[in-house]
């Protein structure tokens, strides 16, 4: 199908909105837009970070998900207590595939679930005593943990427990950081506020722990990788490139990260931000307090990787700049082979994305490197500044949809007929049953890494595997296809 023109896309949006009642239509219209590259600011065309309407299907998460699941959870040598009823922690346990090295249950705790398992009694009488007991118990059972974070679930805020006081007492008792995080799920409109709250908790309770302590030896080439959660090993694939060009990665925030790395981050020379949405807050704080500049980078696809490596290198001296060129040259044969192999199979295929965080704009370059085109993109929980950065990346007259509803997304897909959809698990089976190839772009569909040159090879293979899978020809019942009816006639 040919690309839609601006008028056709606008008409499509109007057509999709038609089904809503007046008020909902007015509200949803603000969240759907046709991309216009000439716009400097996204607030001229799209509204974001607003409360989802009751009654429509949204796939947003909650503040607890943003804090425990995204920012804090991957810090591997801390124990993160899901403070409240058991479900929040258990249903989100180990599903994100943020890999780490270590012995789980001894010195790392990433895939374990620690919860205070609230019952009626705790809601009525308060859970502070229980929390204090848990902290003591953890210290006894897991002596090698480096600290504890208390991730509040909804009831904690509702019953007014004083987790800060318990945390301070716990800190004195065990002599390790105990961080209370006020990330009750009802706060904010999506997981985005959870990221912010988690960033603020790190700022207030962790980041300054080693101020005035100069025992950590620094080099002029120290950087921190911020906002890479090591999904399927992403951060490792990024880190190797940075190290090969001569930089020293002091900290990984927070995939495969440790508490000590976080505490040492104020000593670095430059903060590298991958996921802007979830960790720009802490980068801005470090810029103000410690005068550490930060830049955004993008390690999806060779074009963007080369751009990013050069931009990172431009903040350092000639040795690093030469290092960046060396790294790009070293992998050139490798990524050219990947493109030569997969581009003929993927050329001209059209993709629709609907993801969170950084990927709705960051993966566009990787698709373009494979000759594919992104015809629609949207954020679950992005803000204005995310869309500001997206407008330039997307083609003209493509679809932008913010916090898209289940209905809208299905209708868009029916009309635009993309060759691939990249979204999350909640959309996956709907679209696969509709016969559209689908990749789960939150956890790379149990594959990965996708970052870096190594990741690009896997990315290209996965996209080819999905789009050119013979199963898509079998979706339609055999007696409903023309070819098969001919075959039946021949057989008869």
């Amino acid at each position, binding site marked *: 199908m040919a690309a839609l023109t601006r008028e056709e896309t606008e008409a499509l949006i109007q057509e999709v909105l038609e089904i809503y009642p007046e008020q909902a239509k007015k509200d949803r219209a603000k969240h759907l837009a046709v991309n216009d590259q000439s716009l400097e600011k996204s607030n001229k065309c799209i509204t974001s970070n607003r409360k989802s309407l009751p009654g429509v299907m949204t796939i947003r998460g909650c503040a607890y998900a943003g804090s425990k699941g995204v920012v804090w959870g991957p810090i591997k040598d801390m124990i993160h207590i899901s403070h409240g009823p058991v479900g929040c922690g258990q249903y989100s346990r180990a599903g994100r595939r943020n890999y780490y090295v270590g012995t789980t249950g001894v010195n790392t705790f990433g895939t374990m679930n620690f919860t205070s398992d609230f019952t009626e009694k705790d809601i009525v009488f308060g859970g502070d005593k229980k929390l204090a007991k848990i902290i003591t118990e953890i210290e006894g059972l897991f002596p090698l943990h480096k600290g504890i974070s208390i991730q509040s679930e909804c009831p904690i805020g509702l019953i007014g427990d004083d987790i800060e006081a318990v945390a301070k007492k716990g800190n004195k008792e065990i002599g390790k950081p105990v961080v209370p995080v006020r990330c009750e799920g009802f706060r904010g409109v999506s997981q985005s506020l959870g990221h912010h709250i988690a960033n603020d908790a790190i700022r207030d309770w962790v980041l300054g722990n080693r101020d005035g302590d100069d025992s950590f030896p620094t080099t002029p080439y120290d950087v921190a990788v911020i906002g890479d959660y090591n999904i399927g090993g992403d951060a490792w694939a990024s880190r190797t490139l940075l190290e090969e060009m001569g930089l020293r990665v002091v900290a990984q925030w927070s995939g495969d990260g440790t508490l000590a790395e976080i505490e040492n981050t104020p000593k670095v020379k430059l903060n590298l931000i991958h996921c802007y949405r979830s960790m720009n*807050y802490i980068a801005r704080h470090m810029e103000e307090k410690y005068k550490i500049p930060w830049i955004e980078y993008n390690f999806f696809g060779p074009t963007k990787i080369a751009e990013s490596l050069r931009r990172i290198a431009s903040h350092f001296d000639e040795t690093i700049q030469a290092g960046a060129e060396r790294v790009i040259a070293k992998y050139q044969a490798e990524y050219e082979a990947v493109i030569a192999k997969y581009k003929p199979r993927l050329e001209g295929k059209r993709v629709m994305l609907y993801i969170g965080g950084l990927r709705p704009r960051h993966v566009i370059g990787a698709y373009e490197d494979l000759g594919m085109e992104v015809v629609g993109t949207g954020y679950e929980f992005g803000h*204005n500044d995310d869309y500001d950065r997206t407008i330039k990346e997307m083609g003209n007259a493509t679809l932008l949809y913010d916090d898209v509803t289940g209905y809208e997304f299905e209708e868009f897909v029916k009309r635009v007929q993309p060759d691939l959809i990249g979204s999350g698990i909640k959309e996956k089976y709907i679209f696969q049953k509709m016969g559209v190839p689908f990749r789960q772009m939150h956890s790379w569909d149990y594959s990965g890494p996708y970052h870096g040159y190594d990741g690009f090879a896997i990315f290209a293979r996965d996209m080819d595997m999905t789009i050119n899978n013979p199963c898509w020809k079998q979706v339609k019942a055999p007696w409903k296809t023309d070819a098969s009816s001919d075959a039946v006639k021949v057989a008869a």
Partner: protein
Amino acid sequence: MPSVMLKKNPEGKLIFYVPKKDLEEVAESVEFDTADKWGGEVVLADGSKYFFEPIAPPDFPITLRAKRVDSGED
């Protein structure tokens, strides 16, 4: 009275960032920007105006309180 984070970009221009509004904008002009006084009315690239109590020139980046003078076109 939003809290505004101010920093200089590589071109030496002032970047104006309001966290709560996700507003990130280049400041077009600053009323007082001399060696002994900084502040006054700041006009952003999108046309909106903010007012800072004049102070001794601060060390950027810094967070300051601003008053919104007028909201520009929207």
